[in-house]
């Protein structure tokens, strides 16, 4: 009995690590630039396709292609901030919401045109390997993904708390006007925030590739999860997003175990609606 529960919790934590990479990106952009990036899931999708093509064409291991997908998406993030998002920052909601939404639609449908709706998978030597601990079963690919995801999250935390640029980003998140008075260049900080957030999404994509299929709509699964985790973990809070993502992973996994195989999304929506109904400012949030 406890073994099935423990197994479900482990499965949830492992996939929760991937959710965390996506949510941390969303919450970082929201905290620093004050916009919601509707396209975050599509960057996970792009990360997956990068790893798929590198594995397919050159036989590069998806975990190694992390070193390609992260820099590529970092540059993409800087360019998107500089040429697109910078132009719509202002008091008006509509352009901000629909710019990233249009970007999401564009990337998704471009992928559909270029790569068709087929599922793409990469088979690695460790794709079917698993550790057996007591009665528990831990797939190696998922374990590696989880460990790398946690390491990247920790690295981000260290970056935000110890480097000048990281501190500038946190300052801009806390109070943009005062940060600007202190001589912080907002566009530069925003560019870095977008770059890091997209690099994390790209990392999530590469880490997923050994055990998950790439297809144009794949990002939608992760972005919905991320939105819920980000609301639950208080908007703009990196640690909150991390903890909430792990919780979401566990909740989803328990839902699959005890409610039904296709109930994952229902659990997500139920959690979102409950959060909105009872704690719209998140678990650690202050009233607006």
């Amino acid at each position: 009995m406890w073994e099935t529960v423990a197994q479900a919790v482990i499965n949830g934590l492992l996939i929760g690590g991937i959710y965390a990479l996506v949510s941390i990106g969303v919450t970082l952009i929201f905290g620093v630039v004050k916009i919601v990036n509707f396209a975050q899931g599509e960057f996970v999708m792009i990360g997956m396709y990068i790893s798929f093509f590198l594995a397919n064409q050159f036989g590069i291991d998806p975990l190694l292609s992390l070193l390609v997908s992260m820099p590529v998406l970092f540059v993409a993030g800087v360019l998107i901030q500089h040429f697109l998002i910078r132009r719509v920052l202002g008091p008006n909601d509509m352009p901000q919401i629909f710019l990233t939404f249009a970007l999401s639609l564009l990337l998704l449908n471009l992928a559909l045109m270029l790569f068709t709706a087929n599922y793409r998978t990469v088979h690695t030597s460790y794709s079917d390997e698993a550790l057996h601990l007591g009665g528990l079963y831990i797939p190696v690919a998922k374990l590696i993904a989880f460990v790398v995801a946690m390491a990247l999250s920790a690295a981000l935390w260290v970056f935000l708390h110890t480097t000048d640029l990281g501190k500038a980003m946190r300052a801009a998140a806390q109070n943009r006007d005062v940060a600007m008075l202190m001589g912080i260049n907002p566009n530069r900080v925003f560019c870095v925030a977008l770059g890091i957030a997209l690099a994390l999404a790209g990392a999530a994509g590469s880490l997923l590739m050994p055990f998950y299929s790439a297809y144009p709509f794949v990002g939608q699964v992760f972005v919905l999860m991320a939105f819920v985790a980000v609301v639950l973990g208080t908007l703009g809070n990196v640690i909150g997003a991390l903890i909430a993502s792990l919780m979401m992973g566990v909740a989803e996994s328990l839902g699959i175990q005890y409610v039904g195989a296709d109930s994952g999304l229902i659990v997500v929506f139920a959690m979102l609606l409950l959060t909105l109904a009872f704690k719209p400012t998140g678990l650690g949030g202050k009233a607006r």
Partner: protein
Amino acid sequence: MITHGLRTRTLLWLAIGLAVLIALPLVIKSSFAIDIFIRILLFSFIGTAWNLMGGYAKQLSLGHAAYFGLGAYTSTILQIDFGISPWIGMIAGGFVAMLASLPIGWLCFRLRGPYFTIATIATAQALMLIFLKFRDLAWGAEGTTIPNLGNAPLMMQFDSKAAYYYVVLGLLALGLLITYLIERSWMGYYLVAIGEDEDAAEAIGVNAPRIKRDIYLISSFLTALAGTFYTQYIYFIDPATAFSFNISIEAALVSIVGGIGTLWGPVIGTVLLETTSTLLQSWLGSSIGGVQLTVYSLILMAVILWRPTGLMGIIGEARQRRNSVKPARA
């Protein structure tokens, strides 16, 4: 004097436009063409319903498929299980949508900006999941076909496509009339005030929660009518079409491209987007998936980056330029 002159001229244009629209199916017999006209009128109507809340009050919903689907399912269930005419089912669907908008609004209006948008997406998707999961409620994932009764106007089924055209033309006229009346009433001013700055509107005594609730009721009622019409037109219903995210997207898209918060914006936006998509399809064929939405999203980005006021904004500027040139010549 001048305003009176303008009014007569507007009325004249309106009468000419209406006459052309009524005569159109009598002149053009191609059922392919009429099908496109029906799509344009239908999405203009859905956009008009969205625009009341999304455009004037700037409550940017991406969940209007919820009401489209509820309208479609209500009339279909009433028709198939109880033999009730979709004309009555259409109104019933509207009321079901209004009822549903109360708890959904209660949840979503707690949030502002992008998180309001996400919450509306989630509610529409949750409704789709409910209709997918509970087979006893309504045929589950495979949906059902509407029994074809031949030419039965009382059951909203017609031999000729032209009849459907007139039904949806009537719906659009209703939507535009309601928008016109609201635009000129106290409610219209309250909506614009909320859209400009909700806190400021509340500070001067606008009861924002009540106004938002009321406009959501009207907007969801109208969207449900479109759902019934569409199901009757294609003789089929399933959760994936009735609650399709694309309905929510297109409702917002046509309004933003045409001009958010303007009477004619959704109509102009639909004409542009649907014409583009038809041309693309005849040029490329419908074999490649994703072409239509790729082009739509590029148009949307272009509008947001260069003309956030949409096509109506461009028309308005052109008019102003013309008017400011005229007196200089005289």
